[in-house]
């Protein structure tokens, strides 16, 4: 019972960790560069969850001030994650542009085939 309670209390963190580890696994294990970039984006969004979860207060509302409410969630992680999302999409765009260039140079976006071609030269 106590284990179940602690699972419910930390469920956000466990899912965050699962997403983070899956992102890491995709980045390392998959050879396709587009898939790698999606893995990187997943890793990033797990970090959003990691920041936003502790900022929530049970019974609080979104941090838009109104006389009807007294308890608000913490606005600081929200600000930081807004910045992180935009930077994340900038990273993704740059990575995808590089992928397109690599595809033109090698005719493939799979790491194995690129390495094979490099070794042949």
């Amino acid at each position: 019972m106590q284990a179940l309670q602690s699972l419910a209390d930390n469920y956000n963190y466990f899912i965050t960790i699962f997403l983070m580890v899956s992102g890491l696994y995709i980045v390392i294990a998959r050879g396709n560069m587009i898939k790698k970039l999606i893995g990187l984006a997943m890793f990033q969004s797990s970090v959003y969850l990691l920041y936003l979860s502790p900022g929530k207060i049970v019974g609080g509302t979104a941090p838009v001030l109104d006389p009807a409410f007294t308890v608000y969630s913490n606005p600081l992680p929200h600000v930081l994650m807004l910045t992180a999302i935009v930077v994340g999409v900038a990273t993704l765009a740059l990575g995808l542009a590089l992928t397109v260039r690599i595809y033109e140079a090698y005719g493939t976006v799979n790491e194995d085939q690129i390495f094979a071609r490099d070794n042949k030269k």
Partner: protein
Amino acid sequence: MILLTLLAAVTIAIIQQRELFGVVVLSGVYSFLMASVMIVLDAVDVAMTEASVGAGISTVLLLATLHLTKARESRRLQRPYIPLAVALITGAALVWGTQGMPKFGAANTPMHTHVAPRYLKDSLPVMGVPNVVTTVLANYRGFDTFGEVTVVLTAGLGVMILLRGRRKSKKKKPKGKDKNKAKGAKSKTSPAQTTTASRAEGA
């Protein structure tokens, strides 16, 4: 909680799917689920940005790249034991780390008692904007936002430089017509991305 479980399910689907178009669609689903989770966590501004930037612009960029490259992931030769081990060890370390985390939804943790009350209490009389996230983003942490704009500008310039060299080399070959059109669509997304970024700051 259900949303979080769905997120995990979508993640497993992304790992297993090898058709890259499916992966891109699933990552759009993932972003929307993430935005819903953010609404539950009271982060409405972040949810809005995630839905527009994460699910919108990222998907468009990924689809444009898929159009320019092959849409099929080939199977790797060796079995992925080493990455699996690395991921599991990292995961175990992180789960161990959650033992020190505060209980979900608790109000008496250091992050809620340190600087946040000051933002919540002073921002309306001093700045006059009811949305605290906007106030902090544009006033208290304005330099952060400035740095963010610089990052977006640099990334946009990088994309433009990378893809411009492409057009010149393609012009020599007569077959590159179709690809050039797609490239035009893509470079159009870059300024759009910048405007969304500035909109996100305003949000």
